[in-house]
């Protein structure tokens, strides 16, 4: 192993850990909140089973506004909110707040798109069989859209990794921050290259896993 990696081993490992925390929390937010938000977006659309213009417009506006911020500005803009929520706006934990918010907006849009691919007839058949809205969602919509939901999450996770690299501005740390502080600002270009290689491997691995899983569960 190159000497420079051994020399900074501890810092590198802790920055990897910080990235994993930030991305992990974002994934959790995407699945726990983004998935329901995306489902609501879909159900409240015109012509869908919970058609509701007000709810749809509010959710749609929220998602669009969050996604139109340059991410760096969103992080700064959310500092008061973050401080209110967890008491501080600095550090890895604080960094998970803006990341989670963008994660929810990002994934919910992809969920909505995946659900739009479910043939309308399938939903109709479910209703004709006497399914409740809950049953339509869990026994029909998610089953039929599952490979799209997985691919969407894969795309989202890769974006979250990219977003997490700039969390150094609020002391969030992570691989990206390490690469900038040591590799760029201290002119250790080789160290920066190694960090980039780690990121590339990580992204390749996630994309490969996502694609494989989505192909395996797609029987259409």
């Amino acid at each position, binding site marked *: 192993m190159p000497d420079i990696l051994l020399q900074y081993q501890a810092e590198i490992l802790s920055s990897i850990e910080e990235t994993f925390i930030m991305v992990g929390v974002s994934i959790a937010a995407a699945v726990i909140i983004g998935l329901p938000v995306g489902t609501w977006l879909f159900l409240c659309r015109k012509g869908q089973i919970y058609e509701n213009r007000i709810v749809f417009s509010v959710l749609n506006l929220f998602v669009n506004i969050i996604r139109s911020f340059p991410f760096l500005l969103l992080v700064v803009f959310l500092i008061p909110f973050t401080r209110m929520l967890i008491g501080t706006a600095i550090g890895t934990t604080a960094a998970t707040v803006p990341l989670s918010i963008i994660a929810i907006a990002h994934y919910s849009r992809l969920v909505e798109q995946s659900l739009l691919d479910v*043939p309308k*007839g*399938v939903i*109709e*058949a479910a*209703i*004709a*069989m*006497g*399914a*409740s809205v809950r*049953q339509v969602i869990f*026994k*029909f919509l998610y*089953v*039929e859209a*599952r*490979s799209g939901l997985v691919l969407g999450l894969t795309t989202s996770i890769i974006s979250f990794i990219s977003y997490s690299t700039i969390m150094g501005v609020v002391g969030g740390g992570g691989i990206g921050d390490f690469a900038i502080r040591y590799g760029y600002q201290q002119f250790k270009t080789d160290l920066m290259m190694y960090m980039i290689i780690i990121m590339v491997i990580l992204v390749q691995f996630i994309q490969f896993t996502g694609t494989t899983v989505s192909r395996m*569960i*797609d*029987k*259409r």
Partner: protein
Amino acid sequence: MITLHNVSKSFLRFQAIQSVSLSIKKGEIHGIIGASGAGKSTLLRLMNLLEVPDEGEVEVNGQTLTNLNGKQLRQARKSIGMIFQHFNLVANKTVFENVAVSLKLAKFPRKGRSERVKECLQFVGLSSFMDKYPAQLSGGQKQRVAIARALANNPQVLLCDEPTSSLDPNTSAELLTVLQDINRTFGVTIVIVSHEMDVIKSICSRVTVMNEGQVFETVSIEPKGIGIIENSPSFFVEQLTKDGEMGHA
């Protein structure tokens, strides 16, 4: 069995159904025919409230569906089977799971579920296809899975929306035989919407003709029987040339 009282339905400004009254008797196979846009599919979809009427009452199996709340309506729908032109199976579920889901929705006891699914698949002749996915089946097989799914909960009524319109003539005939068997074996009241005269004539005993959202007339007919399935190449040649307008090249 099914009674519509002065039912009307419009979409935006288009009046799809105008004050239609119709009664369908228990145990009959009732056809609905008409030109495109005559409102036949809408009329059928009113019978399980997939389309909610703007006015009028829909009564099925002694229950006035238009007076029920959400939960009661879902319950009532479990004894109204429905099949569609495009089958509408869940592509990510196996044949077995597609049938089982309708039992799950109806809270059919877990213990007898698998037995019941197999029974229904056997009835439509697909026992050996249980673990296949819809994408691996032909159109006729998909429609038979849809029939098995609709039959699983022992419905009183089976609504068929253009059930044979995306199938070739031979497969259509097979499917109509299945529908006729269901009617004879279980006494299920069947309503068939179709634009194909042959389909309607072959198995229906009463037929409603629709025109511009209204019932033009309801007539009783003697079902003509399902045409013999013939798919030998010489039959096709004979059909093509029998009027003598074409000679052999």
